[in-house]
């Protein structure tokens, strides 16, 4: 199994800065925004977006963490139960909630995250921000903000590592040789 570094710390930092600006521009300011980071790696990304927005907008955007374990569509199809983590969400009623995740792939996790989110309240609208979109959707879900599109083959895996969870910043692609669209 070969593993190649696709994006390094500098590129990830630039992508997060651009995503933060796009989110605020799309919302016409930071007012009414809530960031919901999907556990595990969407949450540190949401926290970085929050810090970035605080820097250029001088505003603290409420940011929470969302665990989707109880909402996954394969929850009773496994031999061992999926591990669960507590969600910590601010008030989302009437807010523009931006779901944040590291890799968008089949769309099943985002489907589960929408269910999880709506159990916390009734947001005015929900947007989706991802660091990497690797394609191969199995559900009609599309991202609103994308760090980078990385076309992949199904047999490959895309691995986002973050300082907060993995001790380094990097996007790795592994498996068969990289497919270029």
């Amino acid at each position, binding site marked *: 199994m070969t593993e190649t570094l696709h994006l390094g710390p500098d590129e990830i930092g630039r992508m997060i800065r651009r995503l933060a600006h796009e989110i605020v521009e799309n919302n016409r300011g930071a007012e009414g925004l809530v960031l919901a980071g999907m556990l595990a790696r969407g949450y540190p990304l949401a926290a970085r977006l929050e810090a970035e927005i605080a820097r250029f907008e001088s505003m603290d955007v409420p940011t929470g963490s969302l*665990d989707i374990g*109880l909402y*996954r569509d394969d929850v*009773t199809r496994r031999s*061992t*139960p999926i591990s669960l983590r507590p*969600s910590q969400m601010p008030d989302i009623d009437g807010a523009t909630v931006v779901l944040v995740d590291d*890799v968008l792939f089949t769309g099943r996790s985002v489907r589960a995250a929408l269910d999880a989110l709506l159990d*916390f309240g009734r947001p005015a609208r929900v947007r989706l921000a991802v660091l990497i979109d690797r394609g191969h959707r199995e559900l009609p879900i599309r991202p609103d903000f994308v760090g980078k599109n990385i076309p992949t083959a199904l047999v490959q895996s895309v691995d986002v590592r973050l300082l907060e969870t993995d001790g380094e910043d990097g996007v790795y692609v592994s498996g068969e040789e990289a497919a270029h669209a």
Partner: protein
Amino acid sequence: MLDSVEMSSADLSLQGWQKKDLLDTDVLTRDEIMLIMQNADVMAGVRSRRERKVATLRGRTIVTLFYEQSTRTRASFEVAGKALGADVVNITASGSSVGKGESLVDTVRTLEAIGADALVLRHHRSGAACLAARHTAAGVINGGDGTHAHPTQALLDLFTMRRRFGDIAGRKIVIVGDVLHSRVARSNLWSLVALGAQVVLCGPATLLPRTIGGGDFEEGRCEVTTDFDAAIQGADVVMALRMQKERQERGLIPSLREYINGYQVTTRRLERAAPDALVMHPGPMNEGVEIAPDVAHGLRSVIEEQVANGVAVRMAILYLLVAGRYS
């Protein structure tokens, strides 16, 4: 395809839960106890939201089979199962074929054939849950068997202590009353000792066991004493056990009055405990016997919290036993 898809996404700290049943706390590893505690935290989060229910176990069936009376345990399991989206069927001995003499094993097999994914069993005979578990593929949860074990009570007690204290290692926990006949005391002992607490079992000599689990006294894992006033000194938790009135009829205590004098949890005795000591009771209480009414409803009492936490802990256990059982 689904499996390979999902593996890349979420499972960071997938700790295995491999057990089919929950029969007692003595067969749980420290990691398994901690996994139940973590999941119970998640479930407590679900219960505190506006939408207090999830659909995780939709399509699964949980049967509660109670051969003994119960309010809180049976209701708690029913609420827990429904909060996870499962269908819950309640069977009591009096209104079922058990009254016609059907054996426990036959009843359990029938319930499995009906589609039970998990059975919650309460029975007056020690070992009943273990027997049932051997004769069914369904997950069996011991909801109390004779004088043997009551693991979900012990786990909700532990959860309640951890919510107040965090880590309970080194904490002094005094369990007072009819320890000899108490499945609650036994199951609590195993989980508390596994997490490093200092456990003191206290009661009249006639209501204390001579050995527990083959000689744990000698190993110094817990202390046994008849002197409650000495035991309560510096205690972080005082857990009173229900005093069955029939114990007096059987001659195990000279009189209820004498028991109250020596072992009732009172405000005056609590002055010797730690300043932030918790008072616990598995219920139902005999107020004025094992616990004074002002203590039962006082500032240090977490007895109602225990009941509320019971739902979250039972949700965690049902999740672990039922969610991973499809194949």
